[in-house]
């Protein structure tokens, strides 16, 4: 008998538990979930209310460079946007209707109850873009140093969007030694 045929005679099947394949798949799916998980978004998502969500979305894109996450948009049966998400860098913000979940747009409330800080790479360029889009500037560009034990130099400006929400844009400049 040829060597190869002899080797073939030692081929023997193993008997498996029926659940063996399911357990193997669970191992694979856990690895897949781990890769997918970071894409699910950040842990904290501020929800910002607007009277006109559609106008807010195009404004935020034009003026600040935020991008809508297309798969996140919720539209009601009559075609009105109920909720949307925008992203910038690794940050995400929810855009919801005024009055829902107790959230009030400054346009009708008359006050801003908070502001949102956004870190950008080039705050001067960002400022020019925002001004060109007709943003109201609450505080113009300025440099400042802040900190407790360590100090950081930032360049910032503050803008009010179309419904009066306040946004503060920062560019981190450098760490400042205490001797300065």
């Amino acid at each position: 008998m040829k060597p190869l045929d002899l080797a073939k005679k030692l081929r023997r099947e193993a008997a498996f538990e029926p659940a063996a394949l399911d357990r193997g798949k669970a191992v694979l799916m856990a690895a897949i979930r781990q890769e997918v998980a970071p894409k699910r978004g950040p842990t904290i998502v501020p929800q910002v209310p607007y009277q006109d969500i559609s106008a807010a979305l195009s404004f935020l894109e034009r003026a600040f460079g935020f991008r809508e996450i297309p798969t996140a948009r919720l539209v009601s049966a009559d075609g009105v946007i109920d909720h949307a998400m925008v992203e910038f860098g690794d940050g995400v913000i929810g855009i919801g209707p005024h009055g829902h979940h107790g959230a009030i747009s400054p346009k009708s409330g008359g006050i801003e109850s908070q502001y949102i800080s956004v870190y950008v790479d080039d705050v001067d360029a960002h400022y020019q873009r925002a001004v060109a889009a007709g943003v109201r500037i609450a505080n113009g560009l300025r440099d400042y140093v802040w900190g407790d034990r360590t100090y950081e130099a930032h360049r910032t400006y503050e803008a009010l969007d179309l419904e009066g929400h306040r946004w503060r844009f920062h560019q981190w400049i450098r760490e400042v030694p205490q001797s300065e």
Partner: protein
Amino acid sequence: MSFPSDAEVIGRSLGEPEAFGLIYDRHAATVLRFLGRRAGAEVAEGLVGELFRIAFERRKTFDSNRPSALPWLYGIGSNLLLKHRRGEARRLRASARMAAGREAADGRASAAALDARVLFPRVADAIESLPDGEREALLLFAWEDLSYQSVGEALELPIGTVRSRLNRARAHLRELLGPVGKRRVRSR
């Protein structure tokens, strides 16, 4: 073709990782049986998920010109099995005893049965003593019925190298087995 090839599924899984689940559904049973033949059910059950996890993590390196992922999966499995050589050797010797027993129960002449009891343990020993590369090529070819092309894809070798490896493995086996019955069985 309405049925997406493995290459297309793996390509899609780069953007949609969940799509890789389909590669498992298509090939896990084949791969599990392969691992089982080599290292037994218990080891195989522990390795099959690990094998596909490794494949998933390396999916960017899959050659999209290959329609089937199976030879690639065999290759990952072959590497994993290297850590289970002892178990594999044990199983091979047990298989040899069983093969000899089958021949004996065949009701043939007792001389043939005696030969079988001598012969098969020697086959097992001979397979065991092949260099890793030759043993792997031989077992993928003889037990898994892979073509030269597929053995080459599994072991990442050109087809000419597969051919020469299998020829060397055959020659080694012939040499190690010698003329049946004229050599003493090596004990282990």
